[in-house]
Structure formats: C-alpha cells, structure tokens
C-alpha cells in the first residue's frame, strides 16, 4: 500500500483505524453483549415517594406504558392511614424489542400523610440499606450465585407538590437525608396546575433551595465521567426538576390518539413538550440514563455502604444463615 492511496481492502472500521491491516471484529463485542443482555434481561428498581394523591402510580404506569403500579383510591372508609410509612414493592416483567426487563416499583404509602410526619423517612432509609445489606451478604459468600438478584433501589423519584411557592420542610429533610444513599430524581407532580411562567419561577426557586441545602440530586455533578457527560448532564440539571403530568387515558387530538387529560378548557397532552416535561423525564430516565442509574447505584452508593460496613465493624459479621458458609473476611 502506498501512503497516499486509501486502503482497498475491505474495512469495517468507521473512519480512523485505517492502520488496521485487516478486520479483526472487535466491534462485534457490542453485538454479543447486546444479545446476552437480551437473553438475560435486566432488573430495574424504582421507588416513588411523595404524599398521597400526587399521581405517583399514574406516572409510573405512564412511563412504562403498562399497569405496573396499582393506583390507590386513597384511604377508604374503613382503612386507617398507617402509623408508619409502609414499603410495598411489586414486580412485573415487561418486554420491548426482544429485551426483557424485570421492573420493580417500590411504593411508600403513608409518607407525608400524617399530621406529625417526624422521621417518616426512616422506614425508607431502612429499606434502602436492607437491600444493600442483602446484596453485600450475597457478595461476600464463598460460593456466590452467578447473578446476584439485585433488589437495590436504583432510582428514587421524589414528588414535589406544585404549591408554586418553594420546597416544604418535609421535602428538604427527606432529600437531604437520602441523597447520599440513593439516586434522587425530584419531579414536580401534577404540574398542570401551573402556567408556564409559574412553573419556571417555581423550578428556579426549588433548584436554589436544593443547592442551598447541599442536596445533590441525580445526575450528581461529582460523578460526571468526562466533559461530554458533564455537558449532557448539565443540560439535564438545568431542566430539573421535571414538571410532569401523568395520564392513562387517551384522547383524539389532531387526528392522533394521545395520552392526556381532558378539561373544559382544553386537552393536556402528556407527551407534548409544550405542555409538560413528561417526555423529557421519560427520555432521560429510560432512554438515556437507565443503565447509568444502575451503575451509579452499584459503583457509588453501594460501595459507600459497603465501605462503611467494613469500617464500622472491623470486618463483616460471619454469615450465619443455613445455606451459606462462613465468610472469611
């Protein structure tokens, strides 16, 4: 080959890489990974937190376009609001394009519903740590399972009531305490109660308050890998918290069937970016950062928990359950 002539040999590389003398096929590894992932499927655990009636279940159902979360009708006549926050988790397997996902939605009924909500975040914090502990126990086993079942909470969507003023004390307390153990994604619920200007002002105020209180929501600035990540994530951080509207009903608008809410003064289209930011939330959460959420949970939150456990006890307690042997850490 003379220097000036382009290679005549068949090359599968895309620009650059013209130094290859032949095609090796390294890039097919992506295809292999994809195939494997499709076969094994993957887990995703999402937690929703917020006072009753903010549309948490509706939003999750809208996000994943299936009835994965049972809508509550509020506390019925004979039901009493639980004295402490309950943790209810429900799993479904959903499939799209050959890819299987085991989606677990963790609901937290009772959060913020009482008159006295002191420490209502404790059961949630406990649950998150318990999942870390479960994973840790599996990891330190001598004979480990091939694929450790992952019940760790990958993402916690926190629903901010659209008061239009600012964050409430409860919001600040919760997010402050939990932003170090889980990825928190704050959203403004039922945002169809605010006009566009009100929404912008509210978001600005909320962002300022989050900053003032040192609350790092996902995507956290400190975990940006490189410049590209940072610039992508900066754009997203500017838009957060996303102001969303959820719906599982369809209406006819301009000849198309869209998800929306029908009011006497117009139809609010859930997926219309001029109406609300649901589409941006969905793209962010599912289409671009789903895997990253899992990675940050595993590499950072879980590792923090693990390090703390190892330091605190000067090593892990030996595992005493019947089907595993003692760890020799």
């Amino acid at each position, binding site marked *: 080959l003379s220097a000036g002539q382009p290679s005549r040999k068949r090359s599968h590389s895309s620009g650059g890489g013209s130094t290859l003398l032949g095609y090796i096929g390294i890039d097919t590894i992506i295809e292999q990974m994809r195939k494997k992932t499709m076969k094994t499927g993957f887990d995703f655990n999402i937690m929703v937190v917020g*006072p*009753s*009636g*903010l*549309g948490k279940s509706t939003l999750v159902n809208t996000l994943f376009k299936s009835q994965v979360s049972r809508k*509550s*009708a*509020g*506390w019925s*006549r004979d039901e009493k*609001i639980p004295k402490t926050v309950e943790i209810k988790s429900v799993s479904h397997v959903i499939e799209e394009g050959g890819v299987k996902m085991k989606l677990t939605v963790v609901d937290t009924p009772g959060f913020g*519903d*009482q*008159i*006295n*909500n*002191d420490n209502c975040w404790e059961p949630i914090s406990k649950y998150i740590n318990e999942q870390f502990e479960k994973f840790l126990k599996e990891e330190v086993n001598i004979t480990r399972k091939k694929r450790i079942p992952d019940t760790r909470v990958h993402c916690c969507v926190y629903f901010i*009531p*659209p*008061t*239009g*003023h*600012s*964050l*409430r*004390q*409860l*919001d*600040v*307390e919760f997010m402050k305490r939990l932003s170090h153990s889980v990825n928190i994604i704050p959203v403004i*619920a*039922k945002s*169809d*109660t605010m*006009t*566009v200007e009100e929404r912008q002002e509210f978001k600005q*105020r909320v962002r*300022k*308050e989050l900053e*003032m*209180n040192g609350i790092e929501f996902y995507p956290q600035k400190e975990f940006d890998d490189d410049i590209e990540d940072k610039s992508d994530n900066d754009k997203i951080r500017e838009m957060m918290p996303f102001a969303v509207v959820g719906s599982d009903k369809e209406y006819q608008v301009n000849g198309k069937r869209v998800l929306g*809410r*029908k*009011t*006497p*003064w*117009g*139809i*609010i*289209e859930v997926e*219309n970016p*001029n*109406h609300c930011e649901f589409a941006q939330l969905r793209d962010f959460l599912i289409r671009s950062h789903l895997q990253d959420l899992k990675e940050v949970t595993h590499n950072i939150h879980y590792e923090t928990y693990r390090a703390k456990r190892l330091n605190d006890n000067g090593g892990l307690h030996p595992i005493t359950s019947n089907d595993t042997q003692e760890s020799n850490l």
Partner: protein
Amino acid sequence: MDAIMLQEKLVERLLCPRVRTARQKEKQYVGFATLPNQVHRKSVKKGFDFTLMVAGESGMGKSTLVNSLFLTDLYKDRKLLNAEERINQTVEIIKHTVDIEEKGVKLKLTIVDTPGFGDAVNNNECWKPITDYIDQQFEQYFRDESGLNRKNIQDNRVHCCLYFIPPFGHGLRPVDVEFMKALHEKVNIIPLIAKADCLTPNEIKKLKDRIREEIDKFGIKVYQFPECDSDEDEEFKQLDKELKECTPFAVIGSNTVVEARGQRVRGRLYPWGIVEVENQSHCDFVKLRNMLIRSHMHDLKDVTCDVHYENYRAQCIQEMTSKLAQDNRMESPIPILPLSTPDADTEKLIKMKDEELKRMQEMLNKMQQQMHDKDQ
C-alpha cells in the same frame, strides 16, 4: 323608584288625607312597611364590616382567591419564605384591613391570614393559635358588650373561615379533619377545593362526593345554607338547591387578565387552553362569590352572633358561675361583671334618649289616630 322617595311619598299621603287614592281606601296603610328601607338607609350610612379568615397550607392560592373575590390587591408586598426560613416559624395570625365602597355602600373588610398552618413536618395542634385567636375576639366582644359604653363596639369576631383543601389528595387528610373539628363550633367553616384547574370535571365530582362523605363520617359541622322560605319563587329555590349540591366549591383565583373568546376576562393562560375564573363551567368561583358576598354575608354574620358567639358566651358564663359557686359565694344566674358606676354625663344622655323615644312614640300614635278618625 328610589326607596327614600317612596318613603317620603307615603308619609305625605298619611299627613295629607285629602289626597286619597282608591288604593288607600282599601288598605289601612300605616307606613311601617317602609321600615326595611329605613334600616337600609341607616345601614348604608353606618357601613358594614365583615371579617373573613383564610386557612390552609402555603401555596393553595388563598391570597389570589381573596384578591379575586374582592377585586383588591391585599398582598402586594408579600415576601414568600423558603423552606429554610420556615423551619422555626409557628402559625401566625396576620390581619389585613381594606375599605371597599360600591354604589354608596361601604364595607370594612378584614382578612385574617394564617401563614404557617400545616407547613411544618410536625403539625400537631397547628390550629391552636387559630382557635386561640377566635376565642380572643369572642372574649373581647363579650367584655365590650357587658360594658357600659356600647356605642362604638368594634366587632372583630371572625364571621367566616374559608378552608382550602388541596386538590391533589383523595379526600380529606388527617390535618383537614382535625382542623375543622377544632373550629366547627367556633366559626362558620366553608371548605373549598383549591386550585381546581388541575382536576378534570369527573375528578372534581369524585372529590366533592368523597369530601362530603367524609365530612358526614367525621361529624364536621360546616356552614349550612339556610333553608329557602316557602314563599320564594321557583327560580330562587332551584338556584339554592344547585348551590347546596355544589359544595364544597372547587375554586380558582386569578388577578391576571387574559383574552378569551374575544373578551378580556380574569383567567389563567396555559399552553392547552385558557381557564376563566368567572366561567361557571370552569369552576365554582362565581357561586362562591355570590354566596359569600351577594346572598349570605348577612346570614354568616347572624350565625356567628347567634350561634357561635352565644355558645362561647354561655360557656364563659357557666365557667364563671361555677367558679363563683366554688368560692362559696351566692350563685347568680346573671353574670356580674365588674361594672363601673355610670357617670353623670352618661346618665343625662340616657335620659335624653328615653325622652326622644317617648316623643316619637306619641307622634306615631297621633298619626294612627288621625288615620283612624278620617276613615270613620
């Protein structure tokens, strides 16, 4: 015809019996049917006062609604607090007073605001400052009423409390129930569904049904519209029925004017449409305003005076008498508040008024006699 002119015409007819009409022959007209007009004239001169309390969490649109109802801007220089600043805040009571005049009628409107209510993490008894305030006003009125110079008693009693229920929930929350139960025997409570433009008509209906059910279930006594008189016309009765079935009112407030259907109206502009505050198919704002101001303002005051205040007074007296009995003093059915002895000036005034009343009575008797004689 103007009420005053009518009255004067009638008096003329009474005193000049020669000008008799056929109608007068039929009716033995005395003339006190003009009394409502006289009351009207005196009241217009004196002016009215009304104290309205608004309660509910921050961000329910209370201030906007008040401004919309009374077409004022009471909260111009308000500074919104952020979460940090609100940490140590207890529930405050803030009064705004504004004088409104319309067609010669003066209204001194006092709005009692309750910032901080329900905003903390722990809201136990957050309604206590509010119940204390209401009791204080009753107590002050009680003292003034039992005092001697009752000419210029200031009535600061709370005539009505608008309670804002968030539209986001599924019905009443524990804090809503506890608040209303603590206050339903002290003040007229009108529950409202706030920010109703985030609900579809179906959702509003479900929520209203749910709230009405829960109000029944928990035995909360909200303000009841008085029954229609049987001699009112059908249209009025129908309107009244619709009003009662519409509670709790689902309201929206706005101070901005938007262009809708070719008109300038008060409303909220969304990307998907315009919500008009005064459009009855959009929300119940008009119903609330009509009820609060145009038809039931007086009844609200009456119920406050006749029911809530009297309850307080009776309770107060009972406590006082039982205390007296405990102190082994003579039990008296009438409360003996420390009254100061009347001074000479006041005594003279009282005598003068007595004499004036006597004179007026004599004049009335003379007129009646005259008429009676003429008709003989």
